[in-house]
């Protein structure tokens, strides 16, 4: 069974949600990894959770990216280790250069907190292999800076390498401006790196795994990761 590590930065606030899902719903071994440490505790998968690391000072994720634990995470990721960054975790991955692009303030300038639908564009990745083609996922978002931006060359690379995993869509998978909550280029909600071992996504799958919370669609993402160790 895959062993997970959830990084805790000062200001992380979705760390316990991620821990709960992996431990209580998936019965996996999980450890918290404090930002000042550098030991990944033999984790097979690292989760960079949501929150407001270092108060979001300067730019979201910009200071967390230099914490001691991140040196180990970057080394781990560059060797092919599996890393999932959720919301602020995605912003940290961008700042660390593990994924391309930046997050701008939401086009509306508002913090957006609601359920959205995600179309899975690529179901062949280790993060999406349990999602059936054509099905959308209902997953909550909660962010003020989720407006994904990058230059045209990088965007074309993302498209050509099937690196765009999730796009904001309607319930039946229609990707349109109308369903774009933050102004992201091409409705991008989540991308992977070229090698496919790092995923950054703004929506919160850890907030929709327990039936009590209204949707269990987030489980498909965690199941995909766990399956990738079995298959």
């Amino acid at each position, binding site marked *: 069974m895959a062993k997970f590590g959830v990084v805790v930065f000062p200001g992380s606030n979705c760390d316990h949600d991620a821990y709960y899902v992996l431990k209580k719903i998936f019965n996996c071994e999980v450890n918290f990894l404090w930002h000042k440490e550098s030991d990944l505790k033999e984790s097979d998968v690292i989760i960079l959770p949501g929150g407001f690391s270092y108060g979001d000072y300067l730019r979201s994720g910009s*200071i967390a990216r230099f914490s001691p634990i991140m040196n180990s995470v970057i080394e781990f990721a560059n060797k092919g280790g599996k890393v999932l960054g959720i919301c602020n975790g995605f912003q940290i991955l961008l700042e660390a250069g593990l994924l391309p692009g930046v997050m701008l*303030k939401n*086009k509306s300038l508002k913090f957006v907190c609601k359920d959205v639908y995600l179309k899975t564009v690529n179901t062949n990745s280790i993060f999406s292999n349990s999602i059936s083609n054509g099905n959308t996922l209902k997953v909550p978002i909660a962010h003020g800076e989720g407006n994904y931006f990058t230059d045209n060359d990088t965007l074309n690379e993302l498209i050509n390498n099937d690196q765009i995993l999730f796009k904001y869509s309607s319930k039946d998978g229609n990707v349109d401006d109308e369903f774009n909550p933050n102004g992201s280029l091409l409705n991008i909600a989540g991308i992977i790196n070229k090698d496919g071992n790092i995923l950054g996504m703004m929506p919160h799958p850890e907030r929709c795994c327990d039936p009590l919370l209204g949707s269990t669609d987030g489980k498909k993402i965690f199941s995909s990761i766990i399956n990738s160790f079995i298959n």
Partner: protein
Amino acid sequence: MYKVKVTIKRRPSILDPQGTAIEKGAENLGLTNIKNTRIGKFIEFTVDINDKTKAKQEVENYCSKLLANPIMEDFEYTLSEWTPSEE
């Protein structure tokens, strides 16, 4: 020792919705000639290095690796000699 003042600007190609929103305020104030409002950052600090070339290297490292994100921001700075008793 040097005192450094850094200005960080968004690259011209990057939309600045905050600037646009503030400009709406200018319109409401009746300031109809205000255009192209864009938000940046101003940061100041000191560098405890006496050699100017080395001090500049330190500043550029700080700016390019942490203070500004080169994907969306440009930075410029001024460097002036400074002794702690001045302020």
